[in-house]
């Protein structure tokens, strides 16, 4: 089952209502507005809980999303690029979240760094179409994945801590 912390995080993210995918013209624009509204609220919640953990932006059409996500383990912050496409069958199918840098480092990935979700994700997503959006996918999919996999990858020395790059505003400006 989904743990209580994730459940309570999910419960605080606004639910969406427009059943529309990227090929649905104006309905998609409406859906995209809802996506942004839910993401804004989710990031606000995270900041308030001192648990800000990703930055995201999309292309103009909202079909491709990219940014950073990070996870703090033993007081060190590990940061990764995150990217995903909105599939043509969205929101019937969830976006496939990918961390390309970790491709090949863990068996819990499919091709191109797409993360392997738990057995719970898909049924839960399917039952909540069209109410779940990108924010829910992050909270239910990527967050728990990082929490399990990053400590494991660090322990196996498959990822090492890098000093934050000066050029990265996301890395230097967070955690406040």
């Amino acid at each position, binding site marked *: 089952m989904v743990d209580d912390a994730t459940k309570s995080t999910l419960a605080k993210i*606004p639910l969406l209502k427009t*059943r529309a995918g*990227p090929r649905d013209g104006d309905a998609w624009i409406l859906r995209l507005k809802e996506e942004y*509204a839910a993401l804004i609220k989710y990031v606000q919640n995270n900041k308030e809980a001192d648990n800000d953990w990703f930055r995201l932006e999309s292309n103009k059409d909202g079909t491709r999303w990219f940014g950073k996500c990070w996870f703090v383990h033993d007081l060190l912050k590990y940061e990764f690029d995150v990217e995903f496409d909105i*599939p043509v069958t969205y929101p019937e*199918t969830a976006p*496939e979240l990918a961390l390309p840098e970790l491709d090949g480092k863990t068996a819990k990935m499919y091709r191109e760094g797409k993360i392997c979700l738990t*057995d719970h994700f898909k049924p*839960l997503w399917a039952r909540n179409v069209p109410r779940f959006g990108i924010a829910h996918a992050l909270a239910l999919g990527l967050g728990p994945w990082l929490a399990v996999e990053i400590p494991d990858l660090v322990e196996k020395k498959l990822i090492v801590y890098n000093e934050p790059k000066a050029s990265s505003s996301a890395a230097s400006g967070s955690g406040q």
Partner: protein
Amino acid sequence: MSSTKTEDELRARVAALEQQLAAALGSAQPSTTAGLVKRTKIATMSSEVVDSNPYSRLMALKRMGIVDNYERIRDFTVAIVGVGGVGSVAAEMLTRCGIGKLLLFDYDKVELANMNRLFFRPDQSGFSKVQAAQETLQGINPDVTIETHNYNVTTVANFAHFVGRIKEGSLTGGPVDLVLSCVDNFEARMAINQACNEIGQTWFESGVSENAVSGHIQLLIPGETACFACAPPLVVASGIDEKTLKRDGVCAASLPTTMGIVAGFLIQNTLKYLLKFGTVSRYLGYNAMLDFFPSMEFRPNEQCTNFHCRRQQQLYQEKLALQPKADGAVAAVAEEAVVHEDDFGIELVSDSAEPAVAGHNANAGLVAGVHRAYDAPAPSHHADAAVTSEISEAASLDLEDLQKQFMAMNSK
């Protein structure tokens, strides 16, 4: 270590390298090297039984009365989406059978981690699967026309092109005769389902479970049979207690046997469908633990969430009405799942590691040994009640303003 031994070792190494070099040169110029035969194109299929005729045993199907007109195979075009453990083997089978044209779609590369499966070779590592497959297949049978597309069919950027090739990719520029889904994920199956529902294309779905010990094939005829979105995906019970299944640490297991068997079932039914012999299975499951093969068929769900599925159903009913009388179809899949919802409007599900209980209505119409991956969602009757002010207000806001507001949060 004596110097003679070192010298012997070096001699052996040189000899081995010379052999490898000869083999490499040989494969580059097969027709000039003894022992390596390059298959040349054959204009017409002959049933003459001579060593040099690759079609003689296939044409014998006609002589024996199994197939009326085997040569017709050359007129057919089949699109294969996913050229992995099942798709590559399926492509090889069709190539050896002398299919007219194959369209291959995949965006993955060959990796050493794939070598537990059939078809690809270690020396093809790093090449795109479609390119590596094309080379091998063309070497096996140059009579087959092979078109490849190295892209992901689920993205907006590629989907229209994908639909276009299904519609116009045949040898005569018309729709392909059959689409075979040999992908390994729900998203891609749903994209193929969407494409086929939109254009009324018949397709076969195939799959192998993540624990590698069960699989299935399913025929989908838009409007006539259930589409892939009509009900939650089917699971062939593996016969092992799914609670004891250890999934930690890996996404999926795979066996060349299960994949080969599923590819065999898939192409056997493809041949039956194209060449019109025998009975084409609507759904055939495979439980490798018990060697159990459930089969059944499904009628479409009138409340399917897919608009094009409902449209195709209507078209099919109109077509039926014009016909004298149709055969009675087997049990329809009626979805009437029990929904339990928490205070926040999120629908929770029971632990999916537990298979749905036999007799539960989510599994109505299913034969023993097969169940749904999860309960079907209820029609969205309460969605609006749970919508918050953030979402209600979003509609009236400008998209660019929302994007700016979101981006501004990055710097705070």
